[in-house]
């Protein structure tokens, strides 16, 4: 499938950049005729994934590097790839369990949200080297409906 747009955002692992990342992803989603609901859901999943990089990947250390890649395809699939170079995940199956969190006081709902709101989610991690979350969502529902 042909790429319509490609955006790569690299930023420090600071709490204020969570909103910067979701704003940027929403601006990219807005380039196709998506619904407000879709835009809110994109914001939510980006927020969860980036927060995870900061909190879990880097144990809240600022000034570490997080990358978000946005690939928008001609068929209006938006692919969001978010990764860090942090501690990584030892047991991905456990991490994906609803309500599981390795940090007390956290909800353990991040991956649940990502999975529910996106069409596809993949988590890859090498302990000590970092974690990559790949998320895909088709934003063409509205224009497909208009065609039908």
């Amino acid at each position, binding site marked *: 499938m042909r790429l319509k747009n490609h955006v790569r955002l690299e930023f420090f692992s600071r*709490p*204020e950049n*969570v*909103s910067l990342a*979701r704003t940027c992803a929403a601006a990219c989603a807005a380039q196709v005729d998506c619904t407000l*609901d879709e835009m*809110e859901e994109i*914001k*939510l999943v980006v*927020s*969860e994934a980036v*927060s995870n990089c*900061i*909190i879990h990947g880097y144990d809240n250390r600022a000034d570490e590097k997080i990358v978000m890649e946005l690939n928008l395809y001609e068929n209006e699939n938006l692919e969001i790839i978010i990764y860090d170079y942090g501690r990584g995940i030892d047991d991905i199956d456990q991490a994906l369990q609803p309500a599981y969190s390795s940090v007390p*006081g*956290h*909800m353990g*709902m*991040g991956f*649940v*949200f990502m999975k*529910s709101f996106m069409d596809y989610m993949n988590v890859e991690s090498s302990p000590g080297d970092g974690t990559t979350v790949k998320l895909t969502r088709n934003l063409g529902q509205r224009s497909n409906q208009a065609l039908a």
Partner: protein
Amino acid sequence: MNLDIKIIKDTLMVRVGGEMDMLVADQLRYEIDRVIRGKNIRNLILDMEAVTFMDSAGLAVILGRYKKMAASGGKMYIIKARPGVKKVLELSGVDKLVAICTDEKDIINL
């Protein structure tokens, strides 16, 4: 984040505005707990009308406050949440613990 906290008799009325994410979660938690401490609060009403975004960091603050209230036999209510915020409350199951109400009148009828 905008934050406005008021005590009316034994009810704590918290109005939050803006985006409830990890950037503001600690401050929000701290400010609410500071006001509750030592007082006999029976009800906590969280007015979310002006909350434009909430992720699981915001959700964790709500769940934590609910547990605190429940531990002392108190109740917690959320009013005026927008559809996007409500969706997050529902998907997480927090709506089973904290009553999601339209507005203040809705609480009285509960």
